[in-house]
């Protein structure tokens, strides 16, 4: 109900439970008020922000600068209610509601979903739900490492997925399962495995150069921080559509950097590259269409030849690419639709 405001407005009136905008004159020279609804005299205490009319029960605000936090609290409640945003099903992790949008992949120990925050503005995330309870420790370690990578001020920058949250699903579908969430980047859709599947004959060698260099940059940053990834596999490398970006995921095997673990990361990266060139993941052998110097380098690194750091190899690869293909240029990965 709204009362007519035919007099100068002081602030508002609230009828016991409902806030009503209204006018309330403060009589000149007197500290008396009258109720804007029933005109009964009011006698607020000296520092009161509001007072209740003893006759009609309306609550009159007497301090023009007073602001009720109730409006803000109600707004937040509505904002946090997924149903208010049109969602019909959601799961809750650590007080935040997420709506599953579809299964992205089914790993050996967990299911990977695409999900969005069930409010607006939303946030798209990758939500990993642990399936094998026996792997809880490894799953938690991955979450902890990812959180550390995202927030620890490491030099990885945008090369690692941005950690969002981890915890246990406390309500909704999949209740009780451990969950790990990180930001979903929709232009990093395809893993090296997907690329191999789409292009069984392999990507162009020019394309493989920037892909490998991106992986080596990430490994160099990781190794510099005293960490080794431990599982550089085609399923853990995501490649960017229409640009020169690669992301690494699957941090469950992260460990301290030792000469052996660093060498293994670099060796595995060469295997992954051989694989998307249409070759063999383990031996690093590639088809004859790959220029021999590049094929030799891949084979040598994949088979654990001369040990070198990720950054040194990146530089070496850059020099080789310049000799083979000329100055760096833009070669996006184009997959058949």
């Amino acid at each position: 109900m709204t009362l007519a405001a035919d007099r100068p407005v002081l602030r508002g009136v609230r009828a016991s439970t409902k806030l009503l905008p209204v006018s309330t004159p403060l009589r000149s020279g007197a500290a008396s008020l009258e109720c804007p609804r029933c005109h009964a005299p009011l006698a607020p205490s000296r520092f009161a922000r509001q007072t209740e009319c003893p006759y009609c029960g309306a609550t009159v605000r007497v301090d023009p600068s007073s602001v009720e936090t109730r409006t803000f609290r109600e707004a937040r409640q509505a904002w946090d209610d997924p149903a208010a945003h049109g969602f019909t099903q959601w799961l809750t992790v650590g007080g935040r509601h997420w709506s599953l949008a579809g299964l992205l992949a089914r790993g050996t120990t967990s299911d990977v979903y695409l999900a969005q925050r069930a409010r607006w503005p939303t946030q798209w995330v990758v939500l990993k739900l642990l399936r094998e309870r026996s792997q809880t420790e490894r799953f938690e370690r991955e979450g902890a490492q990812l959180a550390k990578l995202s927030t620890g001020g490491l030099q990885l920058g945008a090369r690692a997925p941005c950690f969002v949250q981890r915890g246990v699903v406390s309500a909704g579908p999949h209740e009780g399962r451990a969950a790990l969430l990180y930001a979903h980047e929709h232009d990093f859709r395809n893993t090296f495995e997907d690329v191999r599947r789409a292009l069984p004959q392999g990507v162009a060698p020019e394309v493989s150069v920037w892909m490998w260099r991106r992986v080596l940059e990430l490994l160099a940053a990781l190794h510099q921080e005293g960490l080794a990834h431990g599982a550089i596999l085609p399923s853990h490398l995501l490649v960017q559509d229409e640009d020169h970006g690669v992301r690494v995921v699957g941090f469950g095997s992260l460990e301290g950097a030792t000469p052996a673990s660093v060498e293994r990361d670099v060796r595995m990266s060469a295997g992954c590259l051989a694989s998307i060139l249409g070759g063999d993941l383990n031996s690093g052998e590639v088809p004859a269409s790959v220029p021999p110097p590049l094929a030799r380098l891949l084979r040598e690194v994949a088979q654990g030849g001369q040990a070198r750091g990720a950054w040194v190899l990146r530089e070496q690869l850059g020099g080789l690419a310049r000799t083979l293909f000329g100055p760096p240029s833009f070669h996006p990965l184009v997959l058949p639709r």
Partner: protein
Amino acid sequence: MGYGNYSAQAHDQLLHRRSQAPAAEVFTQQNCHPLMNPKGVLARESRDGPDHPDTHPVVFALDVTGSMGDLPRLMATRELPSFMRILEQCRVPDPQLLFMAVGDAYSDRAPLQVGQFESTAELMDQWLTRSFLEGGGGGSGEESYELAMYFLAQHTELDCVVKRKKRGYLFMTGDENPYATLSRHVVESFVGDRLDDDLKVEEIVAELQKTFVPFFVVPDERRRGACEAAWRDLLGDHVLLMSDPADICFVSAGAMLLCEGIAKSLDDVGKAFDAAGVRHERRGPALSALKRVERLYGEGRGVGSSVASRSPAGPVERVMDVLLRR
């Protein structure tokens, strides 16, 4: 406020004279300008008028602490006309700009400064350059962004909301987290309101969204680590990560075009950039910063400023189709 018409030519001329000037010559305030002091302000108004029947209020809340001082200077000496030119090219009617300067309520003298909504180049420029670049900020990793959002939620009157049920836009720049709680004492000191309790930042953001579509803009990749997680928790994919602070106007205008549904994709935004003469080397990075916004509002889902549209951008299946495209 908001009388008069915008002239790109007048704006360019204004900026040309000072393009090489150092910040100290452009921003001469040594204290909060009395007209930008928010204390006791009832409301900043964005009103329709005969010249501007369809106002689109846009707020730039610029972090003016030590680490962020470059951005206001870039806008005042070079970039702001690009923002207006892009909107003009895309026929966004009657934009009205308000500038705010944001600092730290616990360590700065002027943690909040608020201009007025303006339509003309001269007046926009006047409020921007009246900002006092205090260059302070605390060492706590937080700034008083929530105080600025509170002011906008509580002390603005927008005709677009009242008459057309459309919200204004807020582009807040920064490189730190907001304080988790806004103390009622801080509000009373700097705004003059007497709250009955402290407010959580989530409560402020929720209330703010009744009248504004908020975006938080991080100036470069280097600074994302310190603040991205907290802001994403609040604003999700409305956090824009730029690769260079000079992109602020392109990125803001692009986000607005996508959100309004004027641009259906980044290609459309790119065309608008080209038509407005955006420098070639900034085109790609600016578009790159808008990828997440395109995902939310691209392909015709852009009705983000409508008050009634604070809901998922469409049926989940449709969004999935767009996202996965396998």
